[in-house]
């Protein structure tokens, strides 16, 4: 799949859309399973933040976005990246520290960006992407581009000053931005119940005059619908919206997580709400796809990921020789902006 094959629209609007939504979620899941495997086999360096269990959020949000719309992403960004249309091989090659990776091995998982698909980058700093997204929206407005910027961030990020200052700027300048909070219940080990004294995180918007909506983040169609109306508002010049997607991460926060802060029961409970299984159920009910088609989609995703891993492995390791020259952009090199 390339950026050109991106689909926009309601995941339940057509067979084509449903297939696309399922394929995207499956690609994310398979990719992250592959990452976990590479990590486990000692082939990947650093750490990893997997979004397994949260695939519907990235997918539903990005199905409301055009190619030229921009996103900022997070440390847990593989899903956003894939859903916005990134190339799987370049992603995996990056994780493996290869020259043909998105960042030539300089950034790794937390810094993948993809200019072609409007992805301004994952971010290792919790909340770091939110002001950047509103800046992209400001540029869109000033340049009359008609594009929307979406900032993905976690529940934990909402308590950073960066969220606050960015949210207020977006509100007063009525910027074309959507603030997508992936509320997966925890910021690392810190439960939203302890980190907030409000009922839904969408309520945080009240203090800025930003409307908010809370949706089931494991229901790709619901996520799409909420985002689409927020995107419409944004594009119409009516300013930002908070879209809170309630979801859950199945895996630990990162590789060092011993899951001491939550129970196995809670995890199992959420696994029953698997966004992929749920969507399969819905598309079957609605006669949009049958079992065979569903299986074919998963097979396609699997083979894409296997292919990507194999291709990525063939890349040459990133070369230290180029590092010094990579710090600054030289004035004469061709200007590429997202």
């Amino acid at each position: 799949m390339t950026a050109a094959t991106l689909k926009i629209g309601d995941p339940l609007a057509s067979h084509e859309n449903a297939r696309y939504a399922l394929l995207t979620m499956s690609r994310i899941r398979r990719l992250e399973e592959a990452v976990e495997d590479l990590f486990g086999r000692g082939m990947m360096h650093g750490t990893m933040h997997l979004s397994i269990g949260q695939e519907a959020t990235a997918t539903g949000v990005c199905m409301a976005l055009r190619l030229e719309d921009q996103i900022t992403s997070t440390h847990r960004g593989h899903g956003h990246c894939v859903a916005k249309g990134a190339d799987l091989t370049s992603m995996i090659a990056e994780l493996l520290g290869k020259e043909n990776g998105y960042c030539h091995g300089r950034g790794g998982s937390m810094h993948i960006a993809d200019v072609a698909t409007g992805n301004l980058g994952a971010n290792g700093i919790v909340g770091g992407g939110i002001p950047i997204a509103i800046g992209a929206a400001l540029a869109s407005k000033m340049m009359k581009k008609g594009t929307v910027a979406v900032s993905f961030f976690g529940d934990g990020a909402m308590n950073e000053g960066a969220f606050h200052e960015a949210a207020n700027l977006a509100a007063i300048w009525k910027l074309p931005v959507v603030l997508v909070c992936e509320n997966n219940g925890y910021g690392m080990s810190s439960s939203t119940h302890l980190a907030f004294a409000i009922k839904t995180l969408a309520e945080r918007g009240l203090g800025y005059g930003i409307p908010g909506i809370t949706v089931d983040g494991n229901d790709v169609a619901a996520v799409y619908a909420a985002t689409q109306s927020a995107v419409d508002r944004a594009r119409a010049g009516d300013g930002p919206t908070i879209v809170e997607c309630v979801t859950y991460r199945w895996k630990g926060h990162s590789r060092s997580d011993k899951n001491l802060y939550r129970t196995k029961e809670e995890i199992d409970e959420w696994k029953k709400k698997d966004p992929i299984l749920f969507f399969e159920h819905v598309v079957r009910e609605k006669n949009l796809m049958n079992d065979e088609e569903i299986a074919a989609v998963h097979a396609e995703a699997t083979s894409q990921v296997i292919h990507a891993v194999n291709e990525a492995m063939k890349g040459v390791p990133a070369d230290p020789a180029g590092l010094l020259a990579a710090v600054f952009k030289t004035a004469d090199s061709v200007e590429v902006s997202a």
Partner: protein
Amino acid sequence: MTDRMLTMSEALREAMAIAMEERPEVFILGEDIGIYGGAFGVTGDLYHRFGSERVRDTPISELGIVGAAVGAALSGMRPIVEIQFSDFTAQAMDQIVNQAAKIHFMVGGGLHVPLVLRAAAGSGTGAAAQHSQSLEGWFANVPGLKVVIPSSPYEAKGLLLASIDDPNPVIFMEHKLLYKVAGREEVPEGAYRIPLGVSRVLREGKDLTVVATGIMVSRAMAAADLLEKEGVLLTIIDPRTISPLDMNPVYASLEKTGRLMVVQEAPEHGGFLNEVIAKVVTGPSLGSLIAPVARLAGMNIPIPYAPQLEKAAVPQVEDIVKKAREIVADWR
């Protein structure tokens, strides 16, 4: 004096006006830069000339506005952020250091951040410890940032235009005592650029090589005038940009003078000009030294309020004179 003997505020304003006329993607954002004209009057009438979109007043949210500038820069604009006092870069450090400085490198070159952050730096106005710091050293130790310190109206205009052209984030530190004073030379009317990374030799003298930054350049020049009468002749070098840092004129001068003195306002301990010293003594120039290096810097204290305390906290003309005289006399 002609009418082109501008103050630094005027010179900076001219540079921004030229850049905004040249390129539609240049815009300014910051607190009170609109109708108010800027906390130090630098943006002045630009709001009336370019409108509220391009001379954009913001709420008091340094982190948010620098971040917004980063995002806008990534998306085709060329923002100039004004931070009222460089001390408030502390609020925005994440966006400056963890985002702007690193994005181009981290993402593998596909994105870049053409952003200029202007900030009023230094002491001397009685604004005390939270409004008077010289923080250039923080930024100089962060790869990915360029750091400019203009020392006169002429320099300010040419350096700011070059900074706006630069496709990378540039921290532009303006000493607040320089804003309202005219320099020693005329400021040409149209556009001119002073390339980043080229030191300037303001004056050549055989006895001592002085490297000074910001307000210390004019203080060193004043000291040199006084010392000249005593027959002590100084070379004064202004690096203009401390990242990148052009050392060649320093090396060349040391071959003649054999004596080095660095002068900065920032606290001595761990201050940036140590880099100049380190470059000299880790290289072949060490051999040219005929005297211990002289270092004159701010005291290792927060900037105090009362005028007599504030003056004592940072090098003054007479301190430069005294130290220069000593080093030349003691090491013949």
